[in-house]
């Protein structure tokens, strides 16, 4: 099952898959830059936050899922991207969002959980810490990659994978 099929198989996400980065809001698009813009390696995107708003209005819902086919992998990969404002005080909010996402992936999102993934925080607005900061390391140990303002989706994944 590819990314698109997995989205369609997920409760409350039917019909929410959009080609390319189409699910990203205009203000979020500058925060995600695929290195390879000339191919159709982008396998589509979903605006999770909006799609699940009615079902879970008070949850710390995650922003987006982006499916991507790297040149050195046979499987599709999911980038879970959040563009929440970046500041020290928001770290706990981000960790709550990550907890929400992980819990959702264990339940309704179980088809999407089968993909290899990277949780990414590409914050909008000003950031109050550096890429080498302890806060960023804390996030990393929770599985969350702080990319800085722009997350560049690499053409090749760091870990090649062939079935």
């Amino acid at each position, binding site marked *: 099952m590819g990314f698109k099929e997995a989205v369609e198989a997920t409760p409350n996400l039917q019909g929410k898959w959009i080609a390319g980065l189409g699910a990203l809001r205009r203000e979020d698009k500058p925060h995600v830059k695929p290195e390879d813009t000339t191919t159709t390696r982008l396998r589509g995107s979903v605006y999770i936050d909006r799609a699940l708003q009615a079902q879970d209005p008070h949850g710390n819902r995650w922003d987006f899922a982006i499916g991507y086919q790297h040149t050195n992998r046979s499987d599709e990969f999911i980038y879970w991207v959040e563009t929440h404002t970046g500041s020290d005080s928001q770290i706990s909010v981000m960790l709550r969002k990550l907890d929400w996402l992980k819990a959702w992936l264990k339940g309704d999102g179980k088809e999407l959980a089968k993909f290899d993934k*990277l949780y990414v925080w590409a914050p909008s607005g000003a950031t109050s810490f550096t890429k080498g900061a302890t806060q960023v390391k804390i996030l*990393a140990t929770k599985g969350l990659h702080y990319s*800085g303002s*722009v997350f560049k989706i690499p053409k090749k994944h760091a870990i090649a994978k062939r079935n």
Partner: protein
Amino acid sequence: MPTLRIENLGQIREANLDFGDLTVLVGPQATGKSIALQLLKLMVDAGQVQEEMSRYGLDWSGSLPDFMDAYFGEGMHSIWNGEKSRVHWDDELMNLQQIAKRKRKPKAENLFFIPAQRVLALRDGWPRPFTDYTPGDPFAVREFSEKLRGLVEKEFSGESLFPQERRLKKAFRDLLERDVFSKYALKVDKVRSQKRLVLGTGQEGENLPYMVWSAGQREFVPLLLGFYWLMPPTKVSRRGEIEWVVLEELEMGLHPRAISVVLLLVFELLERGYRVCLSTHSSQVLDALWALKHLRENGASPNELLDVFEAPKSMYALAETVMTKTQKVYYFERSKGVAKDITDLDPNSKEKSESGWGGLSEFSGRANEAVARAVANSNK
């Protein structure tokens, strides 16, 4: 703001440097940072450089290649690329051919240079004279070494060099004792008639000679002597007519806590009115500048800056002054040979060279990403 514009000199294709009160150059090895700083010395002190070189028997016979080899070091004439190489100092086109050909009127030295190779300044625990080096060694190294020799011989005959009440404020002495020297004192010792610097515990016969010092102590002692030279034990705040200080790679051999103390000493130089230029490979230095910038912009209390350095409240006035100073940061980029202005140090910048602080935080970024990936995909 003084400016130095360099085109086609060595690895540098283009560098437009505006100097703040504190200017920091970062970038990989062999990207031209040291060339830029040595060139700055030449621009500021051409007459003094010529006079010193002549005094110690260097004769370049008006030849630019010979002058370049004598000044920058053996083989460095190749960095000059004929008509393509251009240098502007404060918007004036400087003719290096003319500097090599015609002797300038000697004037008092305005720039003190602490080179990256400062560990070479001590041999067997005593500063080497200018003439102890080979003619192919860079002028900056030889001159620094000679300055230290003069300092130790004229101003410290038979005294303890550290701790030394007349040299640094007590707060600095306490920090150095805590983070660099521990229980040791730096003093002049004599073996028969030969003087040497040793680290002593205060117990008779328990002196550690130079060869058993730690790498950090060997690096730090010439640096300390450089600071002593710049901070004379008199009521005047600066030595002679020195206005500029260049300090290359202040972090060499030092633990981060010692680097913090050296940065505070750099702040002391700024408070004394020196204009300071650093080169560094330490992200800690840029962390400090980043904090300084934001504390300044947000009108924070100087106590916040002291907190960053775990410095005592007695340094409040120093922190207060430093927060009024201007700063510039440049990244010397290898592939294009340009120096980029990354003064904003914006971790959110779309320019990787700025968000990654000229490569100094890129490794941390990659390490963080690898860990995040591993945790996200773990079966645990």
